């Protein structure tokens, strides 16, 4: 009946996500093969003798057939073992565990900012389509998209954090209060480049709903005020932005990588940048996997949300 349609749809999306994840795992694993240079050499150093190199290769299981190595790799991933960092001091797993909360908080706060900024400006812009306010907001939006996140971070540091001291000029907090305070500026920098996309989608959703025949039909039937706006405008205008949410979260995630280095936040983004700078393969492989799996999950959540908001999505 009706409901099975939606849960059926969600079930199908889940099934579709599994092959995608497997392919991602394969790709990330394959990265090992593409890396220039010999992994064993990286461990033992360039001057190691052929015998030591061979021993390391056996120890790392590099001599086994590829698909066996892949299964072995899957086994290790399942238990959270992503290998050790280049310096060998910490396990990549712990690095991920410590960095994840920072990145998650940053994403959460910037998502809140993005929704607030986009929501407010969209409602303002949609009040009089093509009016002065609407055109001005569109220009600012075009600006926002063009402003590099890391530069905005620096301007916020120079213009707000340093002079007022109200916000730390880098690093993370340890209590919820200090964490929030540390997250405000980076999250703001991050959301300014993403909010315009959500704003444009919400704005066009509202304008189109107001210009639609079902809106006129409701008015003709005497529906007015908040009932009209909620039931016939917002409910329909929310569909396009929600379907964009997954893509926007991916944008935020992507931006976070840069913002974390501007503000020195100890998140997964900073680890990824540092790993790239120090050519730390295991960290890159582990983080790439974590990030892409996160995107798969976010897309899934996005599809589910759309399915519940828009009954036509029964495909």
């Amino acid at each position: 009946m009706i409901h099975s349609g939606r849960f059926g749809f969600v079930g199908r999306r889940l099934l579709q996500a599994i092959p995608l994840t497997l392919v991602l795992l394969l790709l990330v694993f394959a990265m090992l093969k593409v890396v220039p240079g010999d992994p064993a050499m990286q461990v033992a150093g360039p001057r190691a003798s052929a015998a030591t190199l061979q021993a390391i290769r056996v120890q790392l299981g590099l001599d086994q057939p590829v698909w066996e190595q892949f299964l072995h790799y899957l086994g290790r991933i399942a238990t959270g073992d992503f290998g050790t960092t280049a310096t060998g001091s910490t396990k990549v797993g712990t690095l991920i565990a410590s960095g994840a909360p920072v990145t998650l908080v940053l994403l959460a706060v910037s998502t809140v900012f993005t929704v607030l900024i986009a929501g407010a400006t969209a409602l303002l812009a949609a009040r009089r389509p093509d009016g002065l306010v609407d055109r001005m907001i569109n220009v600012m939006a075009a600006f926002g998209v063009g402003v590099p996140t890391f530069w905005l971070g620096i301007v916020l540091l120079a213009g707000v954090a340093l002079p007022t001291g109200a916000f730390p000029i880098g690093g993370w907090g340890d209590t919820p209060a200090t964490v929030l305070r540390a997250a405000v500026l980076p999250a703001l920098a991050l959301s300014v480049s993403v909010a315009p996309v959500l704003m444009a989608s919400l704005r066009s959703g509202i304008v189109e709903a107001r210009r639609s025949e079902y809106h006129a039909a409701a008015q003709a039937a005497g529906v007015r005020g908040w009932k009209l706006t909620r039931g016939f405008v917002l409910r329909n205008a929310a569909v396009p932005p929600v379907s964009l949410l997954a893509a926007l979260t991916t944008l935020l995630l992507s931006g976070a990588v840069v913002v974390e280095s501007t503000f020195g936040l100890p998140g997964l983004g900073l680890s990824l940048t540092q790993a790239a700078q120090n050519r730390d393969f295991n960290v890159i492989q582990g983080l790439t996997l974590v990030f892409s799996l996160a995107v798969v999950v976010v897309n899934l959540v996005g599809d589910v949300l759309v399915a519940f908001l828009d009954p036509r999505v029964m495909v």
Partner: protein
Amino acid sequence: MALAPAQVLGRRRVRRDPGATGTAALVTGAVLLALLLAASFVSGALTGHDPALTDLTARFRPPSPQHWFGTDQLGRDVFARVLVAAGTDLPLALLGAAVPAVIGIVLGALAGYARGWIGTAVMRLADLIQAFPSYILLIVLVFLLGPGAGSFLVGAAVGAWVTYARLVRGVVLRLRELDYVRAAQAAGLGHTRVLLRHVLPNALPQAVVYAASDIVLALSYLAALSYLGLGIQAPGIEWGQMIADGQPFLRNQWWVSVMPGLAIILVGVAVRLIAGGLERRLQR
């Protein structure tokens, strides 16, 4: 490159006054970029300061009539260096948008027109690539291919074509059902001719307008990569790199790091003008 913000902004159906044909915006934008690019070759003569000349006596001069953007930690004129950097940033940003544009348009048109397995194959590949957030894709490529312009361009090509492909495929799928395409097929014109002469020309305008705003994205990715030390390396000069180099002196000499960002925004404005102008010209 996961989702190009400009794509959504570009699709506004706005009733602009029919008078403005968009040429004014188009010309201003293009002239701005051309001037910036030209200035990058003669920045020394233009500003009266040799961008590479270190002069420790002139360290950290704030912005002034002599030094519009002030001087940096080695006493070099920041404005002159910003102009020189344009010679690196602009061409790479243009290429970073053009390369994926070509790939995306071709694959998108094929996926839309041929449908069948080609269509699904292209779209599955697109889903896969979009599973990697753009910076992560770039950073992994830098790791594999080493820092520098090369990995940026490969990253742009691998990541950004997806949006073009989706845009063009959508348009081609719609155009394919229109009567005039059916009429061309019925009149015995071969599929290649119908696709190249009748379908693509009507799909290109939207792709070109988007491409114009994709340059802004490509520039911000290039600058970010260099800011992270994974893009343009010294002795090359690039805006993101300049911002990163100036960050340690942010407390008292904010201009060293802040000023190069203005150039990026100026390019963003110019390209936005071009995109707006193009859109209005093509809608006419």
